[in-house]
């Protein structure tokens, strides 16, 4: 979904603020939320579902909320008033044929799904080069909605200028992990 969480390239958030000697948890409840998630993830929901639950937060709340507040929201979504059915095993990774190889020129598809996706807006419809092939991993777009489909995942390299135009560093690059469903051959 084209949500507020898809932040790559957005303006207006200001400088990165670094907290000196930051504690692991700012309050005890943060640790509790972390522990709750560790205990339930994988058993009752997949992390793709967890991420998608966070993405569904109302945008204004998402921006206002701290990191562990978002987690708490997702845990409530996933655990409260549900049947808490245990998930089945993902099963062994099947052998999946990879359509692309390192060095292949690819173009990202211009997908705008309403559900979960790991194709950020800033790389849609862009030209890049496959650097490495990994996986297969479950396609998040389907897995977040309860359907398992294994796909190869590629580290695709884009020039900063392809993504951000003339103002970007001439030789700088951005590498993004993209599932095969997001890509097509670039002639």
């Amino acid at each position, binding site marked *: 979904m084209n949500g507020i969480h898809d932040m790559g390239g957005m303006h207006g958030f200001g400088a990165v603020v670094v907290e*000196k*000697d*930051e*504690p692991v*948890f*700012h309050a005890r409840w943060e640790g509790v939320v972390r522990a709750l998630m560790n205990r339930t993830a994988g058993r009752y929901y997949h992390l793709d579902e967890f991420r998608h639950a966070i993405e569904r937060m109302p945008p204004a709340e998402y921006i206002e909320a701290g990191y562990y507040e978002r987690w708490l929201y997702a845990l409530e979504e996933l655990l409260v008033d549900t049947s808490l059915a245990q998930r089945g095993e993902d099963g062994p990774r099947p052998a999946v044929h990879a359509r692309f190889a390192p060095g292949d020129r690819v173009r990202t598809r211009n997908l705008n799904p309403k559900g979960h996706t790991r194709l950020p807006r800033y790389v849609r419809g862009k030209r890049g080069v496959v650097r490495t092939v990994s996986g297969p991993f479950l396609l998040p777009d389907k897995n977040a909605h309860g359907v398992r489909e294994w796909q190869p995942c590629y580290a695709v390299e884009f020039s900063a200028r392809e993504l951000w135009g003339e103002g970007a560093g001439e030789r700088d690059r951005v590498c993004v992990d993209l599932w095969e469903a997001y890509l097509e051959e670039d002639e």
Partner: protein
Amino acid sequence: MSVERAVADLEGLPRKNGELVFNAPWEGHAFGMAVALSERGAFAWDDFRERLGDEIGRADREYYASWLAAFERVLLERGLLSQAEVTARADEYRTLRRDPVF
């Protein structure tokens, strides 16, 4: 006073990669005791910190030697322990008349 604030407020705590470093278990215990008692309101953290700064300036020694001295001073000044009982108990440990495992 939370642990987080207590530690964040201190300059010079031995750290490695942002994590605290204890060269021996007793250093960890000295650290934990001071923070725990301050959390419980046995003394004000600022009182401890002031004495710590004082002890660090007093002699060139390892950080937790100063820490321990400052902690001891706060306890004695607040009347939580007496000098006599601390010295007597430390002697028992030093001379193995008391088992260090408890």
